[in-house]
């Protein structure tokens, strides 16, 4: 599927394409990373910045920065499937896709090939846990779910991409065990 550029006419789409190719996402992420490290920025969200890019620290409500173990445990207490989602999200970011919330399309994420202001997203992404945690996310359990999701995404010119995350018997809550998680990517089309 070719990227679908944003713009009100052919010339605007051409301009969006030229700008996007000039500034690939890996370059932007690198710039963000160095600026955050430089100013020792702290925040309350974004595990991606904290754990993967090592440029953000998370404070507890009344303590100093939390380590990865504490952070992982806390996140999992809020959402049981957090590590699966984090692994899937990390995979997409590592491949330099722009990941955005997909709730309005009935998906977990949507991913853009370039900056979202320039190009429409190509995939609606669902994260499904596999192995011991099978079906924990409660999606695509019956055929009507498959019909519903493929039709909804198809109507907005996106393809359903399913990321099956298998934790391979790791019950550790530390993000370190993410290295042992595996992800299988599949598209579902009708």
């Amino acid at each position, binding site marked *: 599927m070719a990227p679908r550029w944003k713009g009100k006419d052919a010339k605007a789409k051409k301009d969006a394409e030229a700008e996007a190719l000039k500034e*690939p996402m890996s370059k932007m992420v690198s710039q963000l990373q160095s600026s955050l490290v430089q100013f020792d920025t702290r925040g309350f969200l974004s595990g991606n910045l904290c754990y993967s890019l090592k440029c953000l620290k998370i404070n507890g409500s009344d303590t100093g920065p939390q380590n990865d173990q504490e952070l992982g445990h806390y996140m999992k207490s809020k959402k049981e499937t957090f590590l699966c989602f984090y692994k899937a999200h990390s995979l997409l970011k590592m*491949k*330099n896709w722009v990941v955005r919330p997909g709730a309005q399309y009935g998906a977990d994420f949507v991913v853009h090939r370039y900056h979202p202001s320039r190009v429409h997203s190509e995939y609606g992404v669902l994260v499904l846990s596999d192995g011991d945690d099978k079906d924990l996310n409660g999606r695509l359990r019956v055929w009507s779910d498959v019909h519903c999701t493929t039709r909804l995404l198809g109507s907005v010119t996106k393809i359903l991409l399913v990321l099956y995350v298998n934790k391979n018997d790791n019950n550790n809550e530390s993000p370190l065990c993410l290295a042992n998680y595996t992800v*299988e990517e599949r598209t579902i089309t009708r």
Partner: protein
Amino acid sequence: MEGKARGCSSSEDSDDEVYLQNASDEDELGSSSGSMPKLQFRNMKSKGCWNEEMGMGEVIEKNGKMWVTTGIVRSGKIYSSIEETFRFRKSSPGDPSFLLYLSRGHPSRAEIEALERQCGGIPLKICLATEGRVSFFSFDKVELPVLP
């Protein structure tokens, strides 16, 4: 832009096999009939020319009832795709385009993988049929590209 002339022979009887015959190879076939499977020449011969722009054979002279249900119509002309132009035999049809698994419940990823291993590389589609409505779903393994 026209390639070699090709002909298809068809017959009015119930035989629904279609044979490819390349006109320029006719003498060669005659001289080496011992080394190739013997082709049966039908009396209702059609003629076509390969159209490079269309990527299909344009049927110039069509004979036989098979053109009622065969071919692709574009701008009033009838074309034959390359699959239709090749020799096709019921007894030796070649690999199918895909295999179809009729399913009632939604198969899990592990079940799909097990089915795929039985398909020997041929694409698999999962078929769901409910109250006369039929859907073919593809669950294709992909590798999302790493972007620049």
